[in-house]
C-alpha cells in the first residue's frame, strides 16, 4: 500500500492515509512543517532561557519558598529579611565598588590597546590580540588559581582587596578590547584627515571627531567589564583572602540553606540588571539619534 507517496489513492481503504502520507512528501508541506518546527524550537529556547528566572521571581513572593505547587499565598517577608541582613548588603556595596574600580582599570588599559591593534602594524600583533582575549577564554578556575598562586607564593602578597582589583582588571580587559576595536575598525579615518586638513590640531581632532565616535563603544565596554566583575564568583573566590563580595556571600548562603533570602536578593539583582540594560540601550539609541540630527544640519 502507498507504493509511491505521490499517487493519490490506490483503493478506497488506504486512500485517506495515502493522501496524508502523500501530503507529507509534498514540497510545500515539507517546507511548512520545517519552518513551523524551526519556530517551535526558537520559541521553546526563549522560554527555556526565561523559565527558571521567572520561577525564582515567583518563589521570592511565595509563602512556600521551595516550590510553586501547592501555592500558599504571597508574602514580602523574604525581602524584609534580606534588607535586615547587614552582611549581605555590605558585601553587595563592596561588589559595586570593586566592579567600578576594576572596570576603570580595564577601560584605561584596553582603549589605548584597541587603538594600537586597529591603527598600527607591529610585530606579533596577532599574538598580542589572542593574548588580550585570553582572560575571557581561560576558565575562571584556572585564572583564579594561577593568580592566587602567583600572588601568594611568587609575590608574597596577602590576598585581599588589592588582589581582587588586579584580577578583575585582567578579566575585564578583553570585553573592552573587543567592543572598542570593533568600533575602530568601522571608523572612517578620512573624517580625522578631513579635520586635520581643515586646520584642526591633533588634540582638537581627537576631542571633536574621534572621541564622540568611539565614546558609545567605550561606555559599552566599561559596562561589560563592570557586569563581568560584579557577577564573577570563581576568580574572587580564589583571590579574595578574607574579603566577602556579593557572590561569595550568596554562595555561602546557598551552601547553608538560606534559600528564602537568596530568592529575594537574586530577584532584585535580575530586576536591577534589567533596568541598567534598558537604560543603557535607551541612552545608546538617544546618542545615535542626536548624532543623526547633527549630521543633517
Amino acid at each position, binding site marked *: 500500500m502507498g507504493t509511491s507517496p505521490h499517487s493519490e489513492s490506490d483503493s478506497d481503504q488506504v486512500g485517506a492515509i495515502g493522501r496524508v502520507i502523500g501530503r507529507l512528501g509534498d514540497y510545500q508541506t515539507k517546507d511548512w512543517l520545517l519552518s513551523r518546527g524551526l519556530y517551535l524550537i526558537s520559541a521553546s529556547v526563549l522560554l527555556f532561557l526565561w523559565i527558571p528566572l521567572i520561577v525564582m521571581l515567583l518563589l521570592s513572593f511565595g509563602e512556600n519558598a521551595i516550590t510553586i505547587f501547592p501555592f500558599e499565598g504571597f508574602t514580602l517577608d523574604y525581602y524584609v529579611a534580606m534588607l535586615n541582613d547587614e552582611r549581605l548588603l555590605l558585601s553587595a556595596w563592596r561588589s559595586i565598588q570593586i566592579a567600578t574600580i576594576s572596570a576603570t582599570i580595564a577601560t584605561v588599559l584596553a582603549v589605548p590597546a584597541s587603538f594600537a591593534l586597529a591603527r598600527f602594524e*607591529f610585530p606579533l600583533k596577532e599574538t598580542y590580540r589572542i593574548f588580550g582575549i585570553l582572560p575571557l577564554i581561560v576558565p575562571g578556575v*584556572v585564572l583564579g588559581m594561577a593568580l592566587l598562586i602567583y600572588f601568594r607564593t611568587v609575590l608574597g602578597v596577602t590576598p585581599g582587596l588589592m588582589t581582587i582589583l588586579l584580577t578583575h582588571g585582567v578579566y575585564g580587559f578583553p570585553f573592552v578590547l573587543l567592543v572598542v576595536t570593533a568600533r575602530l575598525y568601522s571608523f572612517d579615518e578620512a573624517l580625522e584627515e578631513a579635520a586635520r586638513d581643515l586646520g584642526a590640531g*591633533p588634540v582638537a581632532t581627537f576631542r571633536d571627531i574621534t572621541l564622540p565616535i568611539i565614546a558609545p563603544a567605550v561606555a559599552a565596554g566599561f559596562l561589560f567589564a563592570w557586569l563581568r566583575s560584579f557577577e564573577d564568583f570563581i576568580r574572587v573566590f580564589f583571590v579574595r583572602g578574607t574579603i566577602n563580595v556579593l557572590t561569595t556571600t550568596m554562595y555561602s548562603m546557598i551552601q547553608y540553606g538560606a534559600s528564602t533570602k537568596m*530568592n529575594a536578593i537574586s530577584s532584585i539583582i535580575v530586576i536591577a*540588571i534589567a533596568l541598567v540594560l534598558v537604560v543603557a540601550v535607551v541612552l545608546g539609541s538617544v546618542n545615535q539619534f542626536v548624532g543623526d540630527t547633527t549630521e543633517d544640519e
Partner: protein
Amino acid sequence: MNTLSRIQSRLLRTVRSRWRQLGIAIGPSLIYLLLLLLAPVTFIITVSFLQVNDSYQIVLEPTLENYNSLFSSEGPFWESTFFSVVMESLTIAVLTTVITLVLAFPLAYHLSKAEGAVFQLMLVMVLLPFFTVYLVRVYSWLLMFGQNGVINTTLMAFGLTSGPIELFNYGVPAIIVGLIHAFFPYMLLSVYASLDGFNFSLIDAARDLGAGRIETFRDIVVPITLPGVISGCLFVFVPSFGAFITPVFLGQGKVLMIGQLIESRISSLYAIDTASAIAMFIILAIVIAFGLAFRYIDVENLGGV
C-alpha cells in the same frame, strides 16, 4: 606663548613619532598582561613539573611525579579516578556544546531575518538572562531540579507522575541544562554574527536551480556560518570543560568535574603542584580546541561576543 600651550606642544612633539605613539598605546596593557596573565600561567606550568615539600617550599628539580600520582591506580591508568574525572568533564562539555549549537541555530536564523521591534525584543529576551549574575542563574536551576525541585513537584501536583523522576534530579542532565543556559548566548551571537547580512535569496536560488534541502544546507549555509559555529563552539566548550559552580550546585556531590578537583586541591590543601598539574589538562584542552579552530577561522572571527 603661554605655559599651557608650551607644555601641549612639547607633549605633542614627544608623541609625534609613530613608534612612541605605539609604545604609549600598547605599553601599559602589555606590562599589565605580562605581569598578571603570562607570568602566573607560566608559573603554574612550571610548578606542575616541580614538587612542593612539607614546608610549602618549591623543590627546584624537574619531575613528572605530579602527573604520575594523578594517574596512579590499582590497575592501568584509565582506571584512575583522575582519568574518569577528565572523561566525565569532557563528555559533559561536548554534549553541552552540541546541544547548544542545535538549539541556537534556528534562533540565530530567525534573529537574522527579524526586523525592527521584533528584532529588538528577541535580542533583549536573549541578552537579559545572559547578563544576569551567573551564580543567580545556576541557583535558579538548583530550585528547578532535585527530588523535591519545582519540576518534579509540579509534575506530581498535576498528577503527571506518581513519584519524582530521576531525570529531573541533580546529576549530569541537570549540569548540562545549567551549562547550556549559562553559555547559550555565546553560541547564538557567534552564529548570528555570521548570518547577519547574509543574502537569503541565495537559498531560494539554489532551490530553484534544483538543489535539495540537504545540498543547499551543505553547500551554502554551512560555509557561510562555519566561522561563527566554530567560534561559538569554542566559547561554549572551554568554559563548560572548566566549570565549577554548575557542577557543585547541580551535581550535588554525584558528579565530580575537573574544576572542582582543582578547587579542592587549592582550598583545603594548598597543594599547588598537584593543582597546577590538573590545570594543565584544561590548558591543554584549550590549546587543542584553538589549534583545531584556527585551521578554519582567523583570530578576527573570535570577536562575535
